[in-house]
C-alpha cells in the first residue's frame, strides 16, 4: 500500500522495468472468447501429459506423493478456469455457485465440457450416513488416462489425480474448500464395459456443510 507516497509517478516507474512483446500486444489485448470452440490435438496433449507425470515422478517416495504432485499441478488451473468459464457465460446466467449442488453441476457440465468436450458421466452423493460431506463425480473413461498404462506394482496409481486437482481448485476458488482424490473402480472383472472408470471423490471441509445448513434454513 505505497500509493499515498508514490502518487502518480508510480505507473511510469513500473513501466520502465517491463518489456512488451515486439508487436506491442499484451495478454490484455487478446479476447477472452476466441478459443471457445478451438480444440487441441489429443496426441500432443498426451505427450505433454506424459512429461508432466514423469516430472512429478522425480524424487517421490510413493504413489501418494506422486498423486499429490499431480494434484498440485492441476490446482491453479481449476482456480483460473472458474473465473474464465464464468465470464464466458451469457450475462444473464452469470451467477456464482452458492450451494454444493450448483457447484458440482458447474463442474460436471461446464468444466467437463470445456476440458474434455463432454459432460461427466454421473454425479453421486455418498450413501453412507457417516460421510455426508462426500460427493462423487464419475467419469467412465477419463481423457487424461487414454494412453496411460499403469505398471502392475503401482496399481493404486490413477493419473487422473491431475483432474482431481483441477476440481479441487474450482472448489477452493468458489469458497467450498475440499479434498478431491481420484480412484479407479473399473477393471475388476472380465469383459467390463468401462475398465478405466474413475471416481473423483470430493470431500468438503466441515465448515462448508455448516454454512450450507445455515443458508438452507434462511
Amino acid at each position: 500500500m505505497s500509493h499515498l507516497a508514490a502518487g502518480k509517478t508510480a505507473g511510469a516507474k513500473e513501466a520502465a522495468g517491463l518489456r512488451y512483446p515486439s508487436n506491442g500486444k499484451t495478454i490484455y489485448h487478446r479476447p477472452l472468447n476466441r478459443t471457445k470452440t478451438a480444440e487441441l490435438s489429443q496426441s500432443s496433449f498426451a505427450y505433454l501429459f506424459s512429461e508432466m507425470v514423469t516430472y512429478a515422478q522425480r524424487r517421490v517416495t510413493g504413489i501418494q506423493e506422486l498423486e499429490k504432485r499431480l494434484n498440485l499441478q492441476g490446482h491453479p488451473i481449476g482456480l483460473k478456469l472458474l473465473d474464465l468459464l464464468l465470464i464466458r457465460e451469457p450475462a444473464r446466467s452469470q451467477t456464482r455457485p452458492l450451494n454444493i449442488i450448483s457447484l458440482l453441476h458447474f463442474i460436471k457440465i461446464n468444466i467437463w465440457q470445456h476440458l474434455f468436450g463432454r459432460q461427466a458421466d454421473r454425479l453421486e452423493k455418498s450413501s453412507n450416513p457417516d460421510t455426508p460431506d462426500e460427493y462423487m463425480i464419475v467419469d467412465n473413461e477419463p481423457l487424461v488416462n487414454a494412453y496411460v498404462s499403469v505398471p502392475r506394482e503401482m496399481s493404486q496409481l490413477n493419473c487422473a489425480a491431475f483432474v482431481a486437482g483441477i476440481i479441487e481448485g474450482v472448489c477452493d476458488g468458489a469458497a467450498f474448500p475440499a479434498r478431491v482424490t481420484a480412484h479407479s473402480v473399473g477393471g475388476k472383472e472380465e469383459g467390463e464395459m468401462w475398465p478405466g472408470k474413475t471416481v473423483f471423490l470430493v470431500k468438503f471441509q466441515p465448515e462448508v456443510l455448516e454454512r450450507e445448513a445455515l443458508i438452507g434454513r434462511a
Partner: protein
Amino acid sequence: MSYYFAVIGTQDNPLFEYEFGTSKQGGDGQLRFSDQVRHLNQFVLHSSLDIVEEIQWTNGQLYLKAMDKFFNSYISCFITGGNVKFLLLHQPPGANSSNVIGGVGGIAATTTRSTSIGANPTSPQTEEAVKNFFTEVYDNYVKAIMSPFYKANMEIKSPVFRSRVAAAGRKYL
C-alpha cells in the same frame, strides 16, 4: 465526485487500488480527496468486507450493488467467481463538507449535483454505470489471472491493467 477503487483478494489482502475523479458532467477526472480522507477511505472500504461476506451467500449475482454506507461514502461491490472482491467507494458531491472528517474540497461540484451520476448513489443510473465499470474491470482482471505466471492472491502490478481500469473509469463514471 471522487472514487476509490480496490481489488481485494481472498485473504482480505489488497491486490490493486486506484483513485480517480469523475469525468462525467464536465469533471476533469481529478481526485478531490484530501490526504486525510484518502487514509480513511482505505479503512472504510476494508471495513465493508464484513458486510460483503454476509450478503454474498444470499445473492448469487456477481454485482452486489451499493451495499454499505459510512456517513456520506457509499461502497459498491462486485464479487468474482474466485471470491475476489472489487470494491468502489464513492462520495456524492456537495454534502461532504459538513460531516466527513477533514472536509473535502468538493465545492465546485455542487452546481452539477442534481444531474451527475454520482448525485444519487442508489439510483438505477448510478447502479448501471458502476455495473458497467465493474464488468469491464472484471474482463481485464480475468485476462490478468490468465497469465500462467499469476498465482492466486498476487498483487496486480501491470501498468496495462492500471490504464485499462483508468479508461473504464473515464468511460463510465
